[in-house]
């Protein structure tokens, strides 16, 4: 149904945004606050000055990385909820290097990032091994490993890497172990920014034009047929998890080597879950990821002052983001339904009493 009128497309593009804004506005009124004040506070929180804007970019970097990693796993038909633990492990591995490895300064940061990638990939692989060889659905493996990664991180922070003078995490890293900002005002790491852009382009190309990308898509569309046609689906699945972990590892490295300057509990800040929302919104369109990630990063960055200035919990931004994604998906379904109805009205096929069960890939294959 390509011949969708511009009007329908416009309505279905704008309506979900309006509906979710309305819902959030009502919630804000419900708790006795002013939606307009919230909106302007979010805007000024994100873009009041260069430092705030830098903060948005610093959220955009790990969010985009994690979301791009997720595009890879979603392409292979995998629900990699474990992306959050892969960020955390990337952060832990990078911190180990930054704190304890005696490497000369120009190599310290690159090595830390590479080790973080390895750490993320190992945790990605764990989810994959649980799925491929032990039959544990990736959602459950991922949820459990998320919790465990945080437990491990906190155990390390309060145990072997404990810093007596710092209750909020490990000792601050040496200056040589940190990514350097562009300038005092533009507090963004150019290296991290460039890596992020490069990752977006590489994954975009790899999914479009390589044999590996094609096999991944085949695995995602229908793993059984793909296997019968000779696609090594187990290997595809594992490689997708590992690549996602690898990329999420960079995000984790950015959190500790730039944003925080040390390792602290809940280091991912829920960015993994936010990245899942981003990907649900853009589905597989890689080039949309940076754009949506930027909008979400703006909201997240803007929420910093909600608590202090309006005494509203920052979870409001979470509510907004969740609502937008939910409403967009529901409207997608609504549009599909209208199209189907129109198509049915146009083609007078003799109705037969047939019933079809559409075997969409879902949690049903938990024990395959």
């Amino acid at each position, binding site marked *: 149904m390509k011949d969708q009128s511009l009007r329908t497309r416009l309505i279905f593009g704008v309506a979900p945004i309006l509906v979710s804004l309305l819902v959030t506005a009502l919630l804000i009124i419900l708790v006795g606050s002013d939606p307009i004040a919230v909106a302007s506070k979010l805007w000024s929180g994100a873009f009041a000055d260069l430092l705030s804007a830098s903060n948005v970019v610093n959220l955009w970097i790990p969010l985009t990385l994690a979301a791009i990693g997720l595009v890879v796993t979603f392409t292979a038909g995998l629900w990699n909820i474990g992306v959050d633990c892969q960020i955390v492990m990337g952060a832990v591995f990078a911190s180990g290097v930054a704190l304890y490895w005696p490497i000369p300064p120009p190599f310290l940061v690159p090595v830390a990032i590479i080790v973080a990638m390895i750490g993320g990939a190992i945790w990605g692989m764990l989810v994959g091994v649980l799925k491929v060889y*032990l039959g544990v659905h990736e959602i459950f493996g991922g949820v*459990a490993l998320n919790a465990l990664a945080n437990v491990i991180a*906190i155990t390390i922070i309060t145990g072997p890497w404990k810093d007596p003078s710092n209750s909020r995490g490990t000792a601050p890293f040496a200056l040589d172990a940190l990514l350097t900002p562009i300038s005092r005002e533009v507090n963004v790491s150019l290296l991290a920014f460039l890596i992020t852009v490069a990752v977006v382009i590489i994954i975009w190309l790899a999914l479009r034009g390589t044999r590996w990308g094609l096999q991944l898509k085949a695995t995602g569309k229908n793993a059984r047929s793909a296997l019968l046609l000779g696609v090594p689906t187990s290997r595809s699945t594992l490689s997708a998890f590992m690549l996602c972990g690898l990329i999420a590892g960079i995000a984790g490295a950015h959190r500790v080597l730039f944003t925080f300057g040390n390792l602290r509990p809940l280091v991912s800040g829920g960015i993994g879950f936010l990245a899942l929302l981003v990907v649900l919104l853009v589905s597989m369109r890689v080039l949309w990821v940076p754009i949506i990630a930027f909008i979400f990063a703006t909201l997240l960055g803007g929420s910093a002052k909600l608590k202090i200035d309006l005494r509203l919990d920052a979870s409001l931004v979470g509510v907004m983001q*969740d609502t937008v994604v*939910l409403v967009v*998906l529901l409207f997608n379904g609504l549009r599909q339904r209208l199209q189907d109805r129109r198509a049915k009205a146009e083609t007078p096929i003799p109705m037969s009493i047939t*019933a079809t069960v*559409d075997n969409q890939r879902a949690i049903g294959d938990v024990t395959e």
Partner: protein
Amino acid sequence: MSDELLNTLSSIIANATPLVIASLGETITERVGVVNLSLDGSIILSAMVGFAAALATHNALAKANPDLALAVGLLAAMLVGMIIALIVAAAGIELKQDQVAIGFILTLLGAHLATFLGEPVARQVGPQIIKAPIPILQDIPILGPIFFRQTILVYFSYILVIGIWYWLFRTRQGLALRAVGERPTTAFARGTKVNRTRYIYVAVGGALVGLAGAAYSLSVKAGWTTPPSMEGDGWIALAIVIFGGWHPFRVVLGAYLFAALRAFATVFQRSANLDIPVVILNGIPWVLMIITLVLVSSGAIERLLQVLPKPVQKFSRNFLRSDPPAALGTRFDAE
């Protein structure tokens, strides 16, 4: 049996009850072919709403009638669970969206909404469901103190297990329910309204999940805090359904086993006076979850059974059957 052990066992039953109720709710939902992945968020949001509703009613009545306040709280929580479950079902059935995706978003939304709206009632003291020992039964040695000196919610959970088992396996409606989850096409051909059946049982399952939320905030966890103290248990409940092979008795067994392992880990850590940080204890449920899922899913149990004598093998295989409902998470369109 020492009093201390009896107390521990009794508290295991009490602490497991929200898990029992939630995983039974999800069992019905999945048996009819719908995946409600939003359990964690549903439980959190219904816990908050249930507590807030009970607290507000309690204050409005000038604390004159705590039972009424609690009833309002339980009903409000059930309503929240039901609405969330129906969103999942409607998005899957009417709008053809992936149930897993919708469920996941609702998980996040539930937790965020609860944190945002629950701010005013956080850390407040509200009405609690008190224990109501059953006369006569409570005096049975050993069993009495463990099972019959509990809250009314715990007793409800006993009835629920048996009721759901009976409904699923001994009634015509239960047969239709399972048919819709296994072979919707056949069920449709035999005259069952597939999607209507799904809506009904998803609503019931969701209400039970909501009740589980209230069981936390009005009984087990006493009140509402941020971050929510029951965070993560919804995922555990989902895993217990798989561990339980979608069979009410095994699901309940799984929930009790889980609560027991959790309790003994805590007791062991305390009594052995080990210098284990508390955070490691937080990791135990998740390790257990992975181990049990590996046992159930990897065929390890199947291989273990081969060693056993034949008659035992047959019985155990029936008991340990763990295939999900065949049409789980799929859509049904009667053209």
